[in-house]
């Protein structure tokens, strides 16, 4: 299936971070294929895509940990000339202004929360006194004030992630790169994380976020980038993407006889019908007609809802499992 060529949507302000025509190959496999995007100051850009879509490789290249085969990564410092700093050439200067939370926690197990922050601040060349002055507010931000002297081993998953976030903020970065920051967290911990990230956005920080959670992407991101097989296949605000690619309403039908609907005339009432397992999805402009037609079969269970990002994601990247990511 051929996708139309996508140009980068221009951001209103001068960008803070810009990725142009980035590519990366491992042997014969192109894991990132001509990807471009920009991040404006104060913006949260979400990168979504199935396992193996190239999200983490893109982030690693943005951090200078992996060298691109082609393309350009530019960071524009606050008081900058037009040229900006290039990754990986100016890696250290760029990283001095970034905050990073990786998929796997890299907290120091031998240090308390406060010591983790102190030691990490030193890597940025900060003076001990300067870091120590920041530690109380960072711990408070992470809701870890009461755990200042606890080691990571004594923390819950959510607390560890918040400590990682606090650690990423030690140098007061302008841009945060967050690779799946809420994977593996329970709903309470995720909501607290979201609240904190929204607070950071309100303070004017910019965020580049990868996630597998569409509710997370919808809630936090002002713009989304959909990657699949290393290529950018869509870009836009969550609302626009849904309106552009999907019918407004979805009727999910399951229960005895649901699968048989695939061969029934009801199918004609929807613009698009999909079967996944035992559930039939009707994507439609007019849910009323579908629901009325289904009313004659009371054994069926139906769920009527607006189309969401999850539908978009599955439409763009397909329903098949990607296990070799």
């Amino acid at each position, binding site marked *: 299936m051929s996708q139309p060529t996508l140009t980068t949507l221009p951001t209103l302000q001068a960008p803070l971070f810009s990725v142009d*025509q980035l590519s990366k190959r491992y042997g014969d496999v192109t894991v990132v294929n*001509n990807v471009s995007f920009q991040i404006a100051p104060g913006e949260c850009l979400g990168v979504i895509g199935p396992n193996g879509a190239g999200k983490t490789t893109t982030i690693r290249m943005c951090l200078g940990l992996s060298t691109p085969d082609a393309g350009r990564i530019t960071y524009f410092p606050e008081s900058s000339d037009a040229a900006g700093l290039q990754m990986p050439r100016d890696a*250290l200067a760029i990283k001095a202004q970034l905050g990073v939370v990786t998929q796997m926690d890299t*907290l120091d197990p031998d240090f308390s929360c406060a010591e983790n922050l102190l030691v*990490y601040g*030193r*890597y*940025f*060349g900060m003076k001990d006194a300067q870091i120590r002055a920041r530690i109380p507010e960072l711990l408070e931000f992470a809701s870890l004030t009461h755990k200042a002297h606890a080691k990571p081993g004594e923390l819950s998953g959510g607390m560890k992630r918040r400590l990682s976030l606090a650690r990423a903020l030690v140098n007061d970065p302008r841009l945060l790169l967050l690779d799946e920051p809420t994977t593996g967290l329970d709903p309470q911990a995720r909501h607290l994380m979201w609240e904190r990230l929204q607070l950071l956005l309100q303070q004017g920080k910019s965020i580049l976020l990868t996630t597998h959670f569409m509710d997370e992407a919808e809630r936090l991101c002002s713009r989304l980038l959909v990657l699949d097989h290393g290529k950018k296949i869509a870009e836009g605000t969550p609302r626009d993407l849904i309106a552009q690619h999907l019918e407004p309403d979805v009727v999910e039908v399951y229960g005895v006889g649901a699968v048989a609907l695939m061969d029934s005339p009801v199918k004609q009432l929807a613009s698009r019908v999909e079967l996944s397992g035992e559930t039939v999805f009707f994507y439609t402009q007019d849910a009323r007609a579908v629901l009325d037609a289904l009313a004659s079969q009371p054994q069926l269970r139906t769920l009527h809802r607006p189309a969401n990002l999850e539908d978009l994601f599955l439409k763009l990247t397909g329903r098949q499992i990607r296990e070799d990511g």
Partner: protein
Amino acid sequence: MTAMNLDMGDNASAAIRQNVWRPPEVSLRFWPVFLRNLLVWRKLAIPSLVGNIAEPLMWLVAFGYGMGALVGQVTVGGAGHEVKVPYILFLASGSICMSAMQAASFEALYSAFSRMHVQKTWDGIMNAPVRLDDIVMAEMLWAAFKSLFTVTAILAVMLILGISYSPKLLVAWPILLGVGITFSCLALIFNALAKGYDFFTYYFTLFLTPMMFLSGIFFPLEQLPPVVRTISSWLPLTNAVELVRPLFMDQWPEHPWRHLGVLAVFAVVSFWVALALTRKRFRG
């Protein structure tokens, strides 16, 4: 503009950046990484000290006094200025080098590997403005520092036991730091290649242990066949012992520059190799 055009100017510098054999790029940014290890160690210093010095001292006392009673005196020194010394002094002056080697190797293998591979501490550090080269440098110096700490503790006990009161031990001390540096660099090569902790067993049993027996620590090199002696004379541990042993006997080494040179070449070459292999490991 096409991707091609964007690339052109950076091609040459990108090729250099990607070459793992490029010269080390080390800066003072290694210091916070060294401090990090120091801070962890300060919490565990006392138990680790006991572990680090108890075993070498047991060897020394058991062999030195036990075997020493059987062996009596040992002749050391080249033709013209041979001296007869008690076996315990002979053994102590060699085994201090062995302790420096083991302490540095252990730290640069098991502990560095834990930080690099198991805890992913290095990955965390590299998200801050610190280069991999600085981290490898910090690990190398840290392992050498720990080795010097162990050596200092053992020297202190040797002084208490009255094994040697030579004022030249003050010169032995910085030399032993150099021995620690050489073996840290060597060990970091194997750290860069390791898939798991088991790999280090090979390094210890196939490389370090044989070297201990071929470096004149337990018996004089004169007892080895000529071919083995030739090999032995190029081993880093032999050169370390040749430097340190005379100082215990209040003498100066016969060929100090030769021995220092061998140690320095081992250190520089293996640091470079270790760095290249570590860059390769982290390149993606």
